[in-house]
Structure formats: C-alpha cells, structure tokens
C-alpha cells in the first residue's frame, strides 16, 4: 500500500525528473502519524524542493525531519543525498549519530557515522569509528580501515610521527599473523614505511611479500626503485639489468633507473668509469643486435642517454661518440614521428653554432634518396625540427628565415598530396601539421623581432588553411586560438576554445588558454565558463571523497591517500581562484548602474580578499605541455609558450606565478573595497586602500605608462570616496572640519581631473587615428568597463556626502570649493563619454577594418585571408558595440547625477 504511493514519487524524481510533479505528489499525501512512511515522504519532498532550487526550504524540511531522529535506512540515505547537494556534510554525521544512538547494535548505522567522517576528511574521527566498528562487529576490514585512517592523520614526510610509529608496529604484528594478505593491504605497509623513508625495512618486507605480486615485473620494478631510494646502487643496477634483459628493453623507466644507479656508483668511485661504460655499452649493443628485424628504440636511446650523462659529468671526450650515435639514431628511426623529440634533450650539447652546423649536416645526409613520399615526409619533418632545436633557424637573417618558412610551406603542400591517392579519415590528423606549426612559430618569432603584425596574420591564414585539411587538429586550433587572442580576434578565439570541447577536469587544466582577463568583456561566454568551472569543482567537493569511501570498502588501499590529496589539489586550484575572482567582478558589472543594486549584490556575495595565506596554497594545475613547440633553449614566445618573466600586461602566459598571484589578490580586493565604501567602513577602507596601492605598484611595474595612469585613476577614485565619507561624517556628527582631509580631497580631485584628461586624450587619439589594435582595444575596454564604470557608480555615493547648500542669505557654503571641483570632474567624465561614444558610433562600428594594422602583407587575394580579416573585423565591431552599450548606460545614469 505504502510502496504503491511512494513509487510514483520515486519515478517522478529519478526517472522523469519532473520535480514539480514529485513535490505535488508529496504534498498530496497526508500523514497522520510519524513513522518511516511519513519520514520517507518528507525526505523525498526535500529532494524535490532542493532540485527545484529552493535550497533553504529543502534544508528546513530536512532539519525538521532530523528532529525526529529517523532510523530507516531509506530515509537516511535519501536525506544524505540532499544534505550532500546542499553541502551540509556535518548534518549527515548528525543524523547517523542520532540513529546509531537509537540502534546501537546496527552495523549499517555505525558505518554511516564512519562514512560521514571520511566524507568530511576527518580522519581522527574515522579512526575512532573504525575502531568502534571493529570492536563491535569484528572483521579484518575494520581493522585495516583503522590503520589507514591513522596513516591519513599523519603529515606526509614526517619521520617519527606518532601515528606512523603506531601503525608500523600494528602492521608488523598483522603481517606475522597473516592478516596482511593481498597486494592492496600490503600497500598499508608501503605507505607507513615510505612516509618514514624506511626503505631498508620495506625491502625486507618485499622479499616476504612476493606472493602478493602476481606480475613479477611489477615486483622487480618496485624493488629496483626501493634499492635506488635506499642508495643500494650495486643491487639496484642488477635488478634494473634483469628488468631490461628479461622483461622489457623498451621501458624507459628501467633504462633510466639502470643508468642512475650506474652514475651514482661512478660518483662514489671515479675508477669505476671504464668498467661501467663498458658494461652498459655491451649490454645495450647486445640488445640492439637482438632487435634487428623490428628495432626497438630503447637500447639505442639508452646509449645516447649514457653519453649524455657522462658528458654532463665532465667526460667531454665522449661528444664525438655521441655525434655518431645521434646520426645513426636518426638514420635508423628518422621515419618515426617522435624521432626529433627522442633526441631533443641531447641537442643542447651542441650550443656552439659551428658544431651544431656540423652535426646537422651529418644528420641531413641520413636522408636517403628516392624515398617513397610517405617515408620521406616524417624524415623531412624530423630534420626541420632538429635544425630548429639546434638553434640554426631563429637567428637567421630575415630573408633566410623567410626562405625557411617558405620551404616548410612547400613541404606541407607536398605532404598533402599523399591524401590524393590514399583517403584520409576525417578524424585523422594530417601528417604535415607539424610543418605548419613550425612555420607559424617562426612567423611569430619574426613578428616579434621585426615588430610587424603582418606575420601573425600570415600564421593565422596558414593555420586556418591547415584546419581545412585536419578538421580536428587540436594542436593547430590551440596555436590559432592564442594568435587570434593576441591580435584582438577574440570571438574567433573563443569559438575555437568551444570547438576543443574543454570539459570536466580539462576545465581546470586548460581554461588558462582563454583566461587573459582583459577579454572578460564577452560576459556571456565567460559567465558560462566560470559556471562550468564551479560545477566541476562542486563535483570534486561532493564526490571525490565518496570514492575514497568506495576505495575503503573495496580494500583499494593504494588509492585512498591519493584521492584525499587529489581533492586537496583541486580545492586549491589556481584556475578556480581566478575564475571566482573574475566571475564576481564580471557579475558586478551587471549591477553597475545603481549603487543600491550593487550594495544588494555585494552584501549577498560577501566578497573576500584573497590573502597571501590563500595564494601560497594555490596549485598550478594548468597543463602547459599542450603548447607544443620546438624552440631552442632561451627562445620563448608569449603566444604559445609560458614565459616565466614579465612581458606584457594582458597575456596570462607571460606572467610569472608570483605575478599571477598578486593579480588574483588585486582583483579580489576591488569588490571588498566597494563594499567598504558603500557601508562606510572607514578603518577597513583605509587598510584595504593601502593594500590596493601596494598591489597595483607591484603588478603594474612593467605595464605601459597609460595603463599605470588608469590604475592610478582607479585608486584615486576610492581615495576621494574615503575623504568624502569623512566629510559626510563630520556634517552628520556636527564635528569640526578636518582641514587636512579637506585639503587632501581638493588636491586629489584636481589631480584626478588631470589624470582623466591624459587618459581621454590618449584614448581619443588612438581612436581618431584609427589605429585600432589589440592593445588599444584592451585599453579602452579596460578603462570604460572598470575605472570609468566605477567612477559613475561612486558618484552616486559622492553626492550623498555633499548635500546641496542651504540657500539662506548670509550662510556660507562651507563645501563650495569641493563642490566646484567635483562638478568639474563630473562634467569631464560626461564629456569624455560623449566624445568616445561619438567616435565609436561615427567612425567605427559599421566599418571596422583592421587591414591597415597588418599593413604590408595584406593582399586580399586569398580567400582565407579575406575570411580571416572579416572574422577579426567582426570581432572588433562586436567589442566596440558592447563598449558603446556600456557608455550609453553610463551616460544615462550620469544624467540623473546632479550636484
């Protein structure tokens, strides 16, 4: 009977997801008494309410239910689901604790309490409750949960930690009593001893734990690693050799381990050199001979790695041998796409142009004549990449560099021909794509060297053409996206980002590709992106430790600590931090026509300053390896290569980590300061303004002068506000004039007017000269959407501070001077808005043309080039249109502002 009434609600909630219907069904059931049926209905009602977005109401239903201390498992599980969605994890503990108190003999309820603590990452409590579970219900698994919780309580890398000492002792006993009986439970011993760096004992254990390793290679791999860590290099060398010879000669970790042990022995005793050199070389050569019909790269690269390590140790005489080995490696493996990557680390030994040239000449000769096209292309690509990596390209005189690029383009054309006879799958990436990428990197380099944007346009055209052949070439798309961004083609860049289908974890690792804050003008796109980032992180907050619980239950002890660390790494994500700060600022812009609206919005959001303590913990989860390039050492580009030094203001990649953190702090401070102003929190405002000034000083050091002026203007807006608030207090409290404050106010206002004049003439000059480019656009976007918008908002506060004078004869207007200055400033702002708006409307929006920007090279005779120019023009128009919209709104709001 009851089930018949509950089932339709379940169906509505979890099958058809018709939450309104579910709620209606719940409300239609009248329960006369409190029992598990009435509680189920209430719990389901909470689910429906929460799903309908009424979170507070859902919580209040659950809290009401909580007071009845339900014990029914279905009720508890349903409540748990909703509490999880609401982020109220402590309430879950509460409901299970009270249920468990009612039913002390129930394993389900006590385990529920334990789970609730793991979910909250409280391992002291999870230890306590696994102990209770163990005592009450027995079972080896609770004992292991107890130990795992104890290990999780210890801080990583702390020798002598009490928790670790106790777990070690307990595990010793367990092992002897055969309570440790699987690979996964053995991982508890591994964790305990590794945390204490007790590798010797772990090695002893490993011999006794052979039976837990079902795959012998796995056991030997782990043993060799431990021997390495325990600095028992002789034995390590033996085990690694065994792995290479008898298991896998192509596994790089075996080879690296082997050589590392050898090099360590060499450092102990230099006489060992010839012995080791001969021993390892004989080993590798034997393996090379063994793999003649289908050669594996391992043994060949191993020999090169050996040369490399020995040269690093000062054996410069081996360089000749390395040269021979490099040449023969390319000869043998030059037909494989990863050949140049394989050897790229060794090419840095050839940093003198002459020796690089000699090496390259020798390598070039390995290209056999009359090769079939399909065989020739990868070889040619490898040669170009090696030549670039050897730094034989970037320093060429411009004309020769242009010839090189031409060669790359020709080879690309040639490589495309193979698809005339051999059909290319649509999803396949064209073989010549890396030629385009390399050509574009060279064009970017030329563009910077000659300060000529037309090379960027050429690169863009090349990439667009390439994408016609490789529809899904994500490497091409990424570079194209970065190049579009750099020249202000923001719309096409964002379209490319969408094509990449960045979702879930990729949001955390790849959003930086479009996160240059100056483009946050595309508020809809970014609003959506920030929401997705937030949703992904919510999944982490609510789900990751659920899987830690599953790992406990499943006995996957190797994974539990990993999940805990992973959750933390995501919680401290830099991407998340930037996203939150920028999201708040962009939301603020939506409420920036009325100070009252803004007050409501900020009071709801309760902005918080991201402090040093917060930024110190930030984790850089960004994946920069996706920005593929073959640059030689010392050559970088902000387009596709994360620079680690200051370069320009807008480029995310050009900032150092420190700068990015300062930037996050600076941006987070602005909403806080606004709220200080609105709420007239004088003390906070003073301290936060000081902080703002310091941060701006640090962040904008390398900015162009005009941008520094704009930031100065922003700071002074808040300083004026602070002084005016002081004046307001004086009037309200009938206090004496603070003459110092008055002087300061007048002075700042005068100065602010001057700053605004400078900015105005700069922006107008840029626009009138029709020199619209990325940086001009960035300046006008920034100034109009931030400092100028802030000014128009703050005016609304200011007029409240300077009430109209009472027009009585003989009564002097004590604020006359301030009023005049304020009026001047306000009029200037108004006239500036009118002027900018006029220029944009009359001269630009309809006929933006960036052709001039790319001067020389635009020939407009190529279809793709025309398409690209049209795309960029369209993107500029859209931006200008939204600037105009913003300026119109500001003008309208200022009309109402009268002093």
């Amino acid at each position, binding site marked *: 009977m009851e089930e018949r009434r509950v089932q339709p609600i379940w169906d509505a909630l979890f099958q058809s997801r018709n939450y309104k219907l579910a709620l209606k069904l719940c409300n239609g059931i009248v329960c006369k008494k409190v029992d598990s049926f009435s509680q189920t209905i209430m719990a389901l009602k909470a689910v429906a309410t929460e799903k309908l977005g009424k979170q507070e109401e859902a919580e209040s239903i659950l809290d009401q239910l909580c007071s009845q201390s339900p014990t029914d498992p279905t009720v508890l599980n349903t409540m748990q689901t909703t509490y999880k969605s609401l982020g109220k994890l402590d309430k879950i503990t509460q409901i299970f604790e009270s249920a468990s108190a009612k039913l002390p003999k129930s394993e389900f309820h006590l385990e529920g309490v334990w789970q609730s603590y793991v979910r909250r990452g409280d391992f002291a409590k999870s230890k306590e409750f696994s102990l209770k579970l163990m005592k009450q219900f027995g079972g080896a698994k609770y004992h292991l949960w107890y130990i795992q919780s104890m290990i999780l309580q210890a801080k990583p890398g702390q020798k002598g930690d009490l928790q670790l000492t106790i777990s070690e002792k307990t595990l010793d006993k367990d092992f002897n009593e055969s309570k440790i009986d699987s*690979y*996964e439970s053995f991982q508890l011993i591994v964790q305990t001893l590794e945390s204490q760096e007790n590798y010797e004992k772990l090695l002893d254990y490993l011999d006794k734990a052979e039976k837990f390793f*079902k*795959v012998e290679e796995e056991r030997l791999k782990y043993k060799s690693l431990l021997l390495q860590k325990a600095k028992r290099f002789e034995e390590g060398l033996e085990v690694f050799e065994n792995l290479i010879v008898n298991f896998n000669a*192509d*596994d*790089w*970790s075996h*080879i*690296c381990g082997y050589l590392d042990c050898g090099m360590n022995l060499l450092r102990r005793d230099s006489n060992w050199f010839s012995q080791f050199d001969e021993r390892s070389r004989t080993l590798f050569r034997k393996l090379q001979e063994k793999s003649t019909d289908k050669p594996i*790269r*391992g043994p060949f*690269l191993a020999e090169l790695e050996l040369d490399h390590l020995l040269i690093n140790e000062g054996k410069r005489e081996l360089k000749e041998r390395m040269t021979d080995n490099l040449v023969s490696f390319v000869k043998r493996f030059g037909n*494989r*796409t*990863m050949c140049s*990557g*394989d050897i790229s*680390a060794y090419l840095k030994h050839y940093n003198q142009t002459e020796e690089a040239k000699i090496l390259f000449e020798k390598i070039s000769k390995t290209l056999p004549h009359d090769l079939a096209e399909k065989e020739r292309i990868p070889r040619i690509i490898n040669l170009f990449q090696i030549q670039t990596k050897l730094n034989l390209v970037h320093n060429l005189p411009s004309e020769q560099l242009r010839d090189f690029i031409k060669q790359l383009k020709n080879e690309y054309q040639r490589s495309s021909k193979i698809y005339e006879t051999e059909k290319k*799958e649509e*999803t396949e*990436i064209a073989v010549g794509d890396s030629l385009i990428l390399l050509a574009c990197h060279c064009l970017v380099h030329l563009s910077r060297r000659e300060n000529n944007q037309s090379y960027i346009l050429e690169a863009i055209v090349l990439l667009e053409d390439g994408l016609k052949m490789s529809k*899904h070439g*994500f490497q091409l798309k990424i570079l194209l996206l970065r190049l579009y961004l750099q020249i202000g083609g923001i719309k096409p860049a964002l379209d490319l980002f969408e094509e*990449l*289908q960045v*979702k*879930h*974890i*990729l949001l*955390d*690792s*790849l959003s930086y590709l479009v996160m240059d804050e100056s483009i946050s003008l595309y508020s809809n796109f970014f609003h959506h992106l920030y929401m997705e980032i937030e949703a*992904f992180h919510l*999944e*982490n907050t609510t*789900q*990751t430790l*659920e*899987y*830690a619980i*599953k*790992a406990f239950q*499943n006995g*996957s002890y*190797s*994974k539990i600590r*990993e*999940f805990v*660390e*992973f959750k933390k*790494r995501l919680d401290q994500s830099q991407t998340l931090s930037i996203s939150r700060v920028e999201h708040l600022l962009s939301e603020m812009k939506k409420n920036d026509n009325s100070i009252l609206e803004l007050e409501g919005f900020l009071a709801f959001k309760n902005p918080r300053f991201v402090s040093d303590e917060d930024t110190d913990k930030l984790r850089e*989860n960004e*994946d920069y*390896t*996706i920005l593929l390039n073959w640059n030689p050492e010392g050559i970088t580009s902000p387009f596709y290569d994360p620079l680690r030094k200051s370069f320009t203001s807008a480029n995310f990649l050009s900032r150092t980590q420190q700068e990015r953190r300062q930037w996050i702090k600076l941006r987070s401070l602005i909403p806080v300061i606004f709220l200080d102003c609105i709420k007239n929190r004088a003390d906070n405002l003073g301290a936060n303004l000081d902080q703002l000034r310091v941060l701006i000083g640090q962040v904008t050091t390398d900015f162009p002068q005009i941008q520094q002026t704009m930031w100065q203007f922003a700071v002074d807006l808040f300083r004026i506000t602070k002084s005016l608030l002081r004046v307001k207090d004086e009037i309200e409290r009938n206090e004496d004039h603070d003459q110092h404050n008055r002087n300061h106010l007048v002075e700042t206002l005068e100065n602010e007017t001057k700053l605004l004049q400078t900015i105005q003439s700069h922006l107008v000059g840029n626009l009138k000269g029709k020199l619209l480019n990325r940086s001009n656009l960035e300046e006008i976007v920034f100034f109009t959407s931030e400092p100028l918008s802030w000014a128009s908002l703050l005016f609304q506060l200011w007029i409240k501070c300077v009430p109209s004078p009472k027009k009585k004869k003989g009564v002097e207007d004590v604020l006359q001077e301030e009023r005049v200055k304020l009026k001047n400033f306000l009029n200037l702002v108004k006239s500036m808005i009118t002027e900018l708006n006029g220029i944009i409307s009359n001269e630009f929006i309809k006929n933006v043309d960036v052709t001039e920007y790319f001067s020389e090279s635009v020939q407009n005779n190529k279809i793709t080039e025309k398409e690209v120019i049209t795309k960029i023009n369209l993107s500029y128009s859209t931006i200008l249109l939204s600037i105009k919209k913003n300026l119109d709104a500001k003008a309208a709001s200022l009309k109402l502002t009268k002093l």
Partner: protein
Amino acid sequence: SKMTTLRRFVCDDLFKIANINLDVLTETYNLGFYLQYMAKWPDYFTVAEDPNGILMGYIMGKAEGEGERWHGHVTALTVAPEYRKIGLAGKFMGILEDVSEKIYDGYFVDLYVRYSNVVAIGMYKKFGYTIYRQVIGYYSGEEDAYDMRKALPRDVEKKSVIPLPHPVYPSELD
C-alpha cells in the same frame, strides 16, 4: 617525446590527459567515472608516459560477470595522435590481458567496438580477438557494435569465444 614508461594511472595524471583527450574520438568523462575505476579496479587502469612526463595514452578496464562469464573488460583504450602506430595499443592490451589472467583469474577478455571502425576491428583481430556477437544499436541506438573476445588460459576449451549465430539487442546483454 621519447620512450615509454607504463605504470598505473594515478589521480594526478588527470591534469595531464589533455594531449590524449582533446582528440575528437576520445571522450572526457566526469570526475566520478575515472575515480570509480581507480577505486574499484586500480590495477586495470594503466597509462603510458614519456620521459618528459607527457602522457601518451591509457587503457581502463574492469572485471565482471558471473561463473564462467567472469572476465576482463576493456572500457577505454586511447593513444594520443603523435604516438600512434608504434605498438602502444598492443602493449596496453597485453597488460590488460595479463591482469585479467593473473590477478582476476578470468575466462576471457572482451571489448566493444563501433561496427564502422574498420581500423580498430583489424587491430583487435591482430591481437587475437574474434567477433563474438553483433549488438544492434549499441551506440545510442545509432550504430551497432561488435563484441570482440579473446579467450584466456582458464577457458581451456575456448567456449567463451564461440561466435553467436545471430545479432543481439542491448537489452539481451548480461
């Protein structure tokens, strides 16, 4: 990009899968999907890494089935574009078969592949897999799948791979 190191997939690898997952044929799942596999079958999730720390590809799988249908299943196998055609897929499959045989003691390994994916079908045949049955509309009702299998030593008589004479519907799968 150099040589390969094969090892267990760990959570931190999720920050480095872009080079593999941006490929149009590789799906990026929600976090829970990966974590569930790591929590339940940690030894079935293997990744290949080059010495620069760049991920080359990964395989994820699980053990499932009752009685004589207890087997290893390949959930996803993917290799980044620049590391294709160097035998990495074969190595991954070898590891998964090893795990299915030695750790989980299964009777066979199976996988689903798109009916139209001729390249993949050919590759799996090369690895010793045969078509066990055709599943109608397996991919969102839009495309059929082949269920391909390879018997492990435990299935002495190779009963698990005897092809079914007729195609089946997804509802008939166990």
